[in-house]
């Protein structure tokens, strides 16, 4: 599993979700010039004020865990690892600098240790798909497991 936050955007599951800042990967959202509302994924209009003066915005790479759960049964397709490859995984909402809460898979060596409020950082997770390929997507990992996000 590649847990580095530095990677090739074109190789990720949906390149439009990502951008790079100084060579490091970030999630790409959008910010409204009128009311400052931040969305993820990026969109062309503001869901709060309905305005269209919206610009792309690289989201913070670090945040705190706001809520989480564990997916313990295999989701049906289009999930790519429903079959023999299914491994339970955690998902949660991460508060990125009080700008926006982003829903994300969580990568940890110890699911039981996850806690609301803990510091997490952006990583790239590789999901081994049933077809033998794998897809790469964003995830967040407890900051104390990332060695500064550069493992």
């Amino acid at each position: 599993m590649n847990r580095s936050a530095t990677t090739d955007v074109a190789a990720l599951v949906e390149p439009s979700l990502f951008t790079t800042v100084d060579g490091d990967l970030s999630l790409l959202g959008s910010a409204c010039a009128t009311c400052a509302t931040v969305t993820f994924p990026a969109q062309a209009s503001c869901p709060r004020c309905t305005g269209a003066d919206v610009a792309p915005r690289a989201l913070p790479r670090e945040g705190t865990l706001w809520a989480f759960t564990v997916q313990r049964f295999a989701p049906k397709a289009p999930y790519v690892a429903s079959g023999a490859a299914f491994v339970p995984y955690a998902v949660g909402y991460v508060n990125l600098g009080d700008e926006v809460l982003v829903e994300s898979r969580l990568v940890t060596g110890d699911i039981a240790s996850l806690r609301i409020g803990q510091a997490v950082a952006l990583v790239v997770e590789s999901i081994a798909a049933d077809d033998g390929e794998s897809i790469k997507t964003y995830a967040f990992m407890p900051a104390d497991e990332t060695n500064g996000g550069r493992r």
Partner: protein
Amino acid sequence: MTDVAIVGAGIHPFGRTPGRSGREQGAFAARAALADAGVGWSDIQFAFGGSDSAGNADALVADLGLSGIEFVNVSNGCATGGSALAMAERSIRSGAYDVGIAIGFDKHPPGAFNAEPAQYGLGDWYGETGMMLTTQFFAMKIQRYLHEHDMDPGLLSLIAAKAYRNGALNPNAWRRTPMSVEEIAGSTMVSDPLTKYMFCSPAEGAVALVLCRADIAHRFTTKPVILRSCVLRSRRYGTFEVFSPALAPERTAGPTTDAARAAFEQAGIGPDDVRVAQIQDTESGAELMHMVETGLCAHGEQAGLIIDGQTEIGGRLPINTDGGCLANGEPIGASGLRQVHENVLQLRGTAGPRQVPGDPKVAFTHVYGAPGISACTVMTT
């Protein structure tokens, strides 16, 4: 504007009925509702119907009769039944029609619902990476709620145990075997903190309701139930809804709070007057949170009400007297109408062994659906 009465109610048993299509179950419920109102299909002037997995609801006219009426298919997620009823209520209240029907039926395959990302305006990546699951949302919402309000997760098992206890008293329910709190808490963890028996399952079933102008209700029944209000609301910016890749940093009151508030206001009746309530319990955490979102009690009061037995059939605020979604399962098209069907029986005083004592006069329903839709009704005798 005229008031609206429910004068006929019909149900096809919920659960699994091998060999009988969803549409056939819908026709069964429709005929039962027509018979209950003492009318024929030819007396029905309009219909709103919903089915998620069992074909277009208006296919029913092949069974019931090709009478040329206005028949509208409704599709609004788990709130489909509530939405069909809201449209039917409006069609009468507006004066456009005198007598009509709201119908919902469904027949889902076993296993969790499998929603398509594109149907919710989301990219395929959301499903491919394993986040397109209603179960995850319910789990995260109740986990956050328990955390914010410092509440005991043990309440989740108590709520589910009540549902199965009530389901055992309901001949139309799917799960009719009471289950202990220990069995529920100890069943397979599905999405922490929710276990298998804290979740409802996709199912089959059908409900139909005949509605008419309240001033002609006596032609059909001696016990009309008055639909004082029926309100549908969608999410505003800042609410916490299912299938959301992101949330605002600050919370706004959700569509349930908005719909319930408007329903009570339009009815001129307050939550304190409610003597029986059916509220969305797709999992037991939903019942805990919806008790507050509907205005039936305040944050933190749920624990006392539940532990004291006040939400039981004999309590001060009986909730989900027919076993709710937990004991009935969730056929999407029919689920919201099942709640109203139950309240019709309760207000008529014909709910049998699960009848709320004391001759209840005010009843409330609430249904919630993806991706953030809520419908509430206030009904009286």
